[in-house]
């Protein structure tokens, strides 16, 4: 479904991503793990067109999306939940969710998806009229995921959904991510918490200094001595 070939991302002269190639199949959850600064977020940003790729290509459902306008990515069916959540702080929870459905005009189905999001995250329903800036970090992450789902995407890109959250909140968020995946959603997940990411995904890629150094089934990576030593603290 998503094909990334030879993707490069550079900031000025510095290569953050050096020609990486990977893919995500339809209905699959794939983890991209690696240390801080390995180039994971840059990869996601280049796919979502927040950053320009310095080279290489991104295809989605057979269509080349490497150079489309940033605001058209979501129209292709790709929704990014950005690092640090990126909720609109002075918009209410309800308005943030409405922004997720900005590109849609099927009011009836939007209402259905809103019910679905509130089903996943009852807390958001309780705080519907509150400004998003007043929510806790975990609630903001719920909102960011809920907002992405409101676009009824074909694929979700999740950038560090566990970052800065209490363990109990991480549990809750990942329960929902698993539930969404179980509905058949295609997901590309970036995580520093490699164990959690690999336990949740079917396949994984390991990134180091801008390159993919290892890939395979998530279970195999979990048992790989190199991965265990580098990312699982063993």
């Amino acid at each position, binding site marked *: 479904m998503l094909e990334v070939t030879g993707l490069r991302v550079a900031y000025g002269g510095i290569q953050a991503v050096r020609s990486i190639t990977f893919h995500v199949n339809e209905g699959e959850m794939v983890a991209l793990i690696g240390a801080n600064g390995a180039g994971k977020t840059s990869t996601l940003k280049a796919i979502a067109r927040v950053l320009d790729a310095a080279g290489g290509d991104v295809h989605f459902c057979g269509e080349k999306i490497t150079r489309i306008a940033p605001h058209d990515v*979501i129209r292709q069916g790709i929704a990014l939940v950005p690092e640090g959540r990126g909720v609109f702080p002075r918009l209410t929870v309800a308005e943030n969710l409405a922004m997720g459905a*900005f590109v849609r005009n099927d009011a009836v189905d939007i209402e259905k998806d809103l019910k679905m999001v509130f089903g996943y995250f009852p807390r958001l329903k309780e705080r519907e009229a509150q400004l998003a800036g007043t929510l806790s970090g975990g609630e903001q992450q719920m909102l960011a995921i809920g907002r992405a789902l409101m676009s009824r995407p074909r694929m979700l890109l999740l950038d560090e959904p566990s970052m800065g959250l209490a363990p109990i909140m991480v549990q809750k968020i990942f329960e929902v991510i698993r539930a969404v995946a179980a509905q058949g959603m295609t997901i590309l997940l970036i995580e520093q918490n490699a164990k959690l990411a690999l336990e949740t995904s079917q396949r994984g890629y390991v990134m180091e200094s801008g390159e993919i150094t290892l890939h395979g089934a998530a279970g195999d990576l979990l048992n790989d001595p190199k991965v265990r030593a580098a990312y699982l603290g063993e």
Partner: protein
Amino acid sequence: MDIFLQQIINGLVQGSIYALVALGYTMVYGIMGLINFAHGEVVMIGTLVAISVAGTLIKAGVPVALAGVNGLAAAVLVCMALGWGLERIAYRPLRNAPRLTPLITAIGMSIVLQNVAMIVWGRNYLTFPHLLPKVNFEFAGAHFTAIQVMIVGVSGLTMAGLVFLVYRTRLGMAMRATAQNPQVASLMGVNSNRVISAAFVIGSALGALAGVMVGTYYEIAHYQMGFMLGLKAFTAAVLGGIGNLAGAMAGGILLGIIEALGAGYIGDLTGGFFGSHYQDIFAFIVLIVVLMFKPSGLFGEKTGDRA
């Protein structure tokens, strides 16, 4: 006491005009962090276009009211196009330039527009046609005219319409989202270029309306009139907290009232040494005081070091 009430009324009228112009500054600043110093000139062009169109129609025998409506419509349309064009030609190419660059460009555009207006309309003062009959009202010893009532009323309705647009429509939500986080708004499918254009176009339409009101009120116009008006409206926007809609409205009205009261009492307070023609100093005292003690303004949420 009746001087006090009289000056409050005068200040409210002048303040409504400042508020409309201030909204143009604040909308653009809120979305892209740019102070569009050419906005005062957009207002001036609005006034002059209205003079030309309404004046020509009146000479051709068209009823005054109809000529006035046409003059206003022409001013609004020309200014909307002007605001859109300014952004496209002058500011969009500089979107990723250092912040000082578009600011200097804005001052440059202001000079260009003044000179274009001077070439088109000449260097002399122009008289604005009488669009409304001179009807006077009296309330508790204070006098006011139909024109003043119209200015306050139309400004109030227009501002209510703007609040509706920004807080109750899809475009308004996209504008607020873009102001808060342009990158994420773009991820949601918002075309930031369109939102920025909309801010310029709407701000310019409000400016045109203000320009026509100024013309109707003072019955005089000049190619340099946009400078002082723009500077005062900018002061009003800063007073309210630039980037904040409610702030621009409150700041405009407050500044109008401060100025009117200042002009009303300066003679008494200085024993006649300064007359009411010194009223312009009050706006700038306000600007200096706000920048020194509360640079985020009355409603401002945060202060940055943005130019």
